[in-house]
């Protein structure tokens, strides 16, 4: 079912009338401003059975997105056209098709702002409510409904919204409602206006409604009858947050409490959910540090009780691990486990001053980061021994401070960046990583460790030309063994970019599976336009953004990516 409602196509037609034929933003005849952007990712697939790249019947797959927004004074409107014909490998096939799944109109006047249509928004850190779209993950949980923002006085913002969430080309079965209030005390309370202590507080409440359905409590004893569950049709979650800053110190804390929410991600238990996220940071010139702690207990919160799969999240649970960008460091990424997780992350950034022994002529940047993530302790309730599932029970007890098993993830990263001369800069990284593949990826393999070393060299050849070389190694005796990665990028500013890379699984226990994954790319930039063509192999892997992950299958072939904005 597509969002091919008459209203949206009329709306799209109206938007087209306002857009100039030229692909750059400009004033419309009606006096407003039109902006937009376009992205297309297309891939031509070759069969490459060695790496598990399976045949693609269509030969070529394509994803594209076109955003157009129109602004005139206090009025704002926009839409996004999407086409997945058919979706690229690794994208959920339920995206197949094309249409306008996103549109909105927005009007702001004085203290009010009203939005109708598809809404992206967030309350606090997002742990009780966040709707967003992320192309790389194939994720879009926009809320189709209405939002009203009201700022009655300076320093106080109220928000209320309700709607239904996008589910591919259809909508989820649940209705979501939410309200949020945030107060900046320094603006609200006059005496605090000049205080060095900055405080803002916030509170939210979100609830979802879904029709009743038939879920049963079932017993191991076949003679014992099943019992239909009394499902809560309305499920609420409340959150409180505090942000404070004083001098170089800042603190952010948020606590979420979710009411009984039996669903197919928690085994239909009636246990309440709880999340807490605390961050403390220190920052001054040349030195920054932060420490963050998180605990999640039964915090899957979706607008559909069953069949939502990885989608229809009402909330967003931020990752407590650093998102890595180097290829081998990102090979085993950690994604948030919403129902049972407790973790700690810390980082120190320090700039060794220039013109010192260790700082050299230009200074040296040093960063240390660590993450520790475990399950929470869960003590299964005795009554479950007689049941064939946990449905219709409270599930488990969990002492708040008890660290549970399994150990999901560990990492420790040291990064040193040093500019040796105006022409040469080096970034060095060492990372220790420990991961439980079963909990994190669903692979039935034991916990394993790896060491990753990266050297990233940038040579300035001339005012326009630069050469960057990355040499990486991942050393492990588990999973597929050790890997080496070499990348050379040559850029001719501002327009041209060339790269050659090879990823080599030299440490695979099976010599016949020690594959190379070469990849060549050329990119051309012209102002806001970019086109990139690459050819080569891509290994099967996982892409994560902000703790949410997507599996990418192995593939081989030609890839074209075009982006432009206007």
């Amino acid at each position: 079912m597509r969002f091919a409602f008459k209203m949206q196509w009329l709306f799209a037609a109206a938007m087209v009338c306002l857009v100039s034929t030229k692909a750059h933003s400009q004033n419309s005849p009606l006096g407003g401003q039109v902006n937009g952007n376009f992205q297309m990712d297309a891939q031509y697939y070759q069969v490459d059975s060695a790496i598990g790249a399976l045949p693609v019947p269509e030969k070529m797959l394509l994803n594209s997105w076109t955003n157009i927004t129109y602004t005139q004074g206090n009025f704002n409107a926009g839409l996004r056209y999407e086409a997945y014909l058919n979706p690229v490998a690794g994208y959920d096939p339920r995206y197949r098709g094309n249409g306008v799944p996103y549109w909105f109109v927005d009007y702001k006047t004085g203290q009010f702002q009203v939005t109708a249509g598809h809404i992206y928004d967030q309350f606090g850190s997002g742990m009780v409510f966040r709707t967003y779209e992320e192309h790389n993950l194939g994720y879009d949980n926009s809320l189709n409904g209405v939002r009203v923002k009201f700022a009655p006085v300076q320093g106080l913002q109220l928000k209320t919204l309700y709607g239904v969430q996008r589910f591919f080309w259809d909508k989820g079965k649940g209705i979501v409602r939410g309200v949020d209030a945030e107060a900046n005390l320094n603006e609200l309370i006059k005496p605090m206006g000049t205080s060095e202590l900055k405080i803002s507080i916030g509170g939210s409440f979100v609830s979802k409604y879904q029709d009743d359905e038939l879920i049963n409590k079932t017993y191991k004893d076949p003679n014992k009858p099943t019992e239909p569950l009394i499902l809560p049709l309305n499920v609420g979650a409340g959150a409180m947050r505090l942000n404070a800053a004083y001098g170089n110190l800042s603190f952010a804390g948020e606590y979420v409490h979710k009411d009984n929410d039996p669903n197919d991600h928690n085994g239909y238990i009636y246990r309440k959910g709880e999340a807490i996220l605390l961050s403390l940071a220190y920052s001054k010139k040349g030195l920054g540090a932060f420490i963050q702690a998180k605990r999640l207990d039964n915090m899957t919160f979706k607008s559909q009780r069953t069949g939502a799969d990885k989608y229809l999240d009402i909330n967003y649970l931020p990752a407590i691990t650093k998102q890595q960008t180097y290829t081998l460091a990102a090979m085993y990424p950690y994604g948030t486990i919403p129902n049972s997780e407790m973790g700690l992350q810390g980082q120190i950034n320090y700039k060794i001053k220039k013109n010192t022994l260790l700082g050299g002529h230009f200074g040296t940047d040093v960063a240390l980061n660590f993450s520790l993530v475990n399950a929470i302790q869960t003590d299964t309730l005795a009554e479950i021994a007689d049941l064939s599932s946990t449905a219709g029970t409270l599930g488990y007890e969990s002492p708040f401070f008890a660290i549970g098993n399994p150990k999901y993830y560990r990492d420790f990263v040291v990064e040193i960046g040093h500019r040796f001369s105006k022409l040469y800069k080096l970034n060095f990284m060492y990372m220790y990583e420990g991961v439980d593949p079963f909990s994190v990826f669903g692979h039935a393999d034991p916990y394993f460790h790896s060491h990753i070393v990266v050297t990233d060299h940038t040579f300035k050849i001339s005012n326009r030309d630069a050469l960057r070389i990355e040499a990486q190694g991942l050393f492990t005796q588990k999973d597929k063994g050790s890997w080496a990665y070499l990348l050379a990028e040559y850029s001719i500013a501002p327009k041209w970019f060339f790269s050659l890379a090879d990823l080599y699984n030299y440490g695979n226990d099976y010599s016949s599976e020690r594959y190379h994954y070469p990849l060549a790319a050329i990119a051309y930039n012209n102002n806001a336009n970019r086109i990139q063509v690459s050819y080569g192999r891509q290994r099967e892997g996982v892409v994560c953004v902000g703790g949410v992950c997507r599996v990418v299958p192995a593939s081989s072939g030609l890839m074209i990516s075009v982006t432009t904005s206007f």
Partner: protein
Amino acid sequence: MKKQIKRLGLGIASISLLIAGSCDRIEPPYVVPAKHVACEAPDFPAIGNTYKRVLLEDFTGHTCTNCPDAAEATHQILMNHADHVVAVAIHANYFAKPLLDPDFTYDFRTPQGEYWYTYFGVATNPIGMINRVTTGGQILYPYSQWENKVTEALAGNPLVEIQIIPQYNPLDDTLCVHTKTTFLGTYSHDLYLSVLLTEDSIVQPQKKGANVVLDYVHNHALRAVLNGNWGTLINYAAPHSNDTFAIESFSEKFSHLNANPMVMKNCHIVAFVFDGETKEVLQVTQVKLID
């Protein structure tokens, strides 16, 4: 302007309070309480020749002017197909509401009828379902199509057979209904049993076109459902053989089944087995409550 802002702000605050109050807290044991069955299940006779029967559900109401035509169509279908069709008239929602008009104060509605009206997306009356089968996204059909749909649904052999033995104890007004579902073939989804009480020959006014028929005879009216919106799970998806069966018993005070007094000799027990995933009816049986 300040007043308007104040009012709008109050409006938002009110909506916010409503949102904040929107949650259902369920207390243990979290399950629909099992009904205590007051009477022991009897011995069921062996099943004889089995044949497929079809459930025809007609959403209707006493102020629905076209509904008598649908009732007539139902009657014709029952005549055409003898014991192969079981009809249930579900009086629900707008056209079934009791009115201040003294002709239409009677309340035909049931909680399960109201729930199914909403669940199956009924928007107009008369409209009906045949075995709750969805074809091409459509589950509701106008009465002009019921005969064809019934004929389609009668094709094939039944996967289950249902037997019903009702018992009534006049001393304490307890009605017991015992059902035995025998599985005749393999099926890949969970199966559920629903048990209903219908009543014939209810004489109450009915709108018919531009007129009101004061002594209209309402038949097959749904009066009660003994086991909730979605029935009772009787078997998990598994290959079944002929000697597999499920016995379920229900008991209730007869007079508690419906706020309106019912004439027992006009009542039937209807039991149907449906697919828990698709909601499609596999088989239906009807017996008189008392002979």
